């Protein structure tokens, strides 16, 4: 364990096997307070599912985890490190861009709208970041990409452009693209909500395989059945706060908070 990580762990009481450690996370956009002190613990190798009504701050929280948004207050440690800062004494020094990029590259993110690079073929999408960010040799990157495409069942689509793929195929390519960076953790922001119902299954299938292979995942989703089956913990967010958290089965069968109950009755 690195020096900084040990210091952070001692200082903030981070559990040994923690992948995501968020304490009192606050985020405001101007006068709008979107996150009002959120705590979350995601142990390594586990799957956390976040549910909640629209506008409750789920996406914002996820984007804070890889520093796409800067926190207004509180801390998020990923694998024991700050993503965007170095802590020295009581000061958080913003990282230089290349350091920030290096840490961010270890956190994969999947989007509702897939966001494959539309001017590149599937293969080019997959090797872009390994080659450009990690400096991997092109031939090696291609080999690894081919293996990842096989894993998501899209070996025959190497030369296709994103526009020529169905939504489900695009999202599976996006998953392969994220995996190409060998991330420590994957963040999913409603990965299936832009998909036709009959395509949801193939993406959830790929995510299930990932979870079984031991990948740490944080999944914002409306697929309650998926959360119950795959999730190790379920988090219900409302109006910038975590209202209830716990074992997915217990929480879905017997929600404690009336707000959770009301939300679940609407989506189930």
């Amino acid at each position, binding site marked *: 364990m690195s020096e900084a990580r040990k210091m952070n762990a001692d200082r903030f009481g981070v559990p040994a096997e923690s992948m995501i450690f968020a304490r009192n996370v606050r985020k405001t956009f101007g006068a709008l307070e979107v996150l009002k002190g959120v705590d979350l613990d995601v142990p390594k190798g586990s799957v956390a599912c976040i549910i909640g009504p629209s506008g409750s701050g789920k996406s914002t929280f996820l984007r804070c985890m890889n520093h796409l948004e800067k926190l207004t207050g509180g801390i998020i440690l990923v694998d024991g490190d700050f993503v965007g800062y170095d802590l020295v004494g009581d000061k958080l020094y913003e990282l230089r861009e290349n350091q920030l*990029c290096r840490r961010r*590259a270890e*956190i994969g993110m999947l989007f509702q709208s897939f*966001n494959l690079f*539309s*001017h590149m*073929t599937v293969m080019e999408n997959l090797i872009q970041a390994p080659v*450009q*960010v990690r400096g991997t040799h092109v031939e090696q990157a291609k080999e690894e990409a081919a293996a990842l495409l096989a894993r998501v069942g899209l070996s025959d689509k190497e030369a296709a452009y994103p526009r020529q793929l169905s939504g489900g195929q695009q999202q599976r390519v996006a998953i392969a693209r994220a995996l190409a*960076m060998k991330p420590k953790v994957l963040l999913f922001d409603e990965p299936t909500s832009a998909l036709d119902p009959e395509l949801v299954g193939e993406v959830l299938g790929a995510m299930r395989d990932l979870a079984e292979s031991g990948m740490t995942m944080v999944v914002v989703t409306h697929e309650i059945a998926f959360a119950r089956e795959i999730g190790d913990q379920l988090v219900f967010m409302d109006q910038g706060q975590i209202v209830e958290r716990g074992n997915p089965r217990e929480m879905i069968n017997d929600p404690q908070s009336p707000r959770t109950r009301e939300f679940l009755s609407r989506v189930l």
Partner: protein
Amino acid sequence: MVTRPAQPDAQGQKTQIHGVDALTVVPRRNYAIWIGTVVVLVLAALILKAFASNPAFAWGTAWGYMFHPSILRGLGNTLLLTVLIMSAATLIGTAVAIMRVSPSPILRTFAGVYVWFFRGVPSLIQLIFWFNLSLLVREVSLNLPVFGEVFSVRTNDFMTPFFSAVVALALCEAGYMAEIIRAGIKSVPSGQAEAARALGMPYRKILRQIILPQAMRFVVPPTGNEAINLLKMTSLVTFIAVDDLFYSAQSIYARTFETIPLLIVVAVWYLAVVSIMSVGQFYIERYFGRSDSGHEPEALLSIVSRGLFLGRKKERDNV
């Protein structure tokens, strides 16, 4: 008579209906198009006849000057000016466009003022201004505290007419290019940059490898327009005595008074260059649009020939 489509029978097999494959389509007759075509053809014939039979046009004389050495030298200068100015304008325009979308308000303001100024002042005035720069600044020198004078040149020595034409028109054209490129950058969905950021790509690479290539699809068509405009705009340099195509023609007909034939020569050369540029633009557009279409791109020739035959295709599914 309407033939019902073949219905699958109980076994799921199609019953054959006689003659389904033998049906042919009779194209709709559009009399307005026919009348229009006749009118246009008659007009074209009249105009051609007027041009060909009027001795003032002196086609023989025009042909004689077509490859005249000073005309060719003028043409060379016109092309050189266009290429130099367009390249410089694209580089400066890209830089200004990137400043205009940058997070820094100072850079954004600077870029905004640049575009406002260089698009706003007539290019002829900018041209004459740069040509006369030596009146304003007699000498350009660099003085460093310790080293003393590093270099010093008289403005007149490097502000030749040609150079001032390149500087003036490039700065002016860059104002237009900046706006075109900015619009292209804005047209790239924000999710593209976001995905690249999430993958750990630095801003510089995101711009160069993700955003600008995608912006190109929107940038190329108006840039082709700009290039053609610029080609013709370079004839302004006549005012500061750069011997471009138009200037060379002028200096010939100032002596010989064969004004119309020489204007024809100039027009024909401009048309020829514009035609070549349009073909180039076609291929560049196709290159940057390659991720768009699911099928092989159509060749230029087949598009042109289809255009000549009023876009009518025989196949039924293309009606």
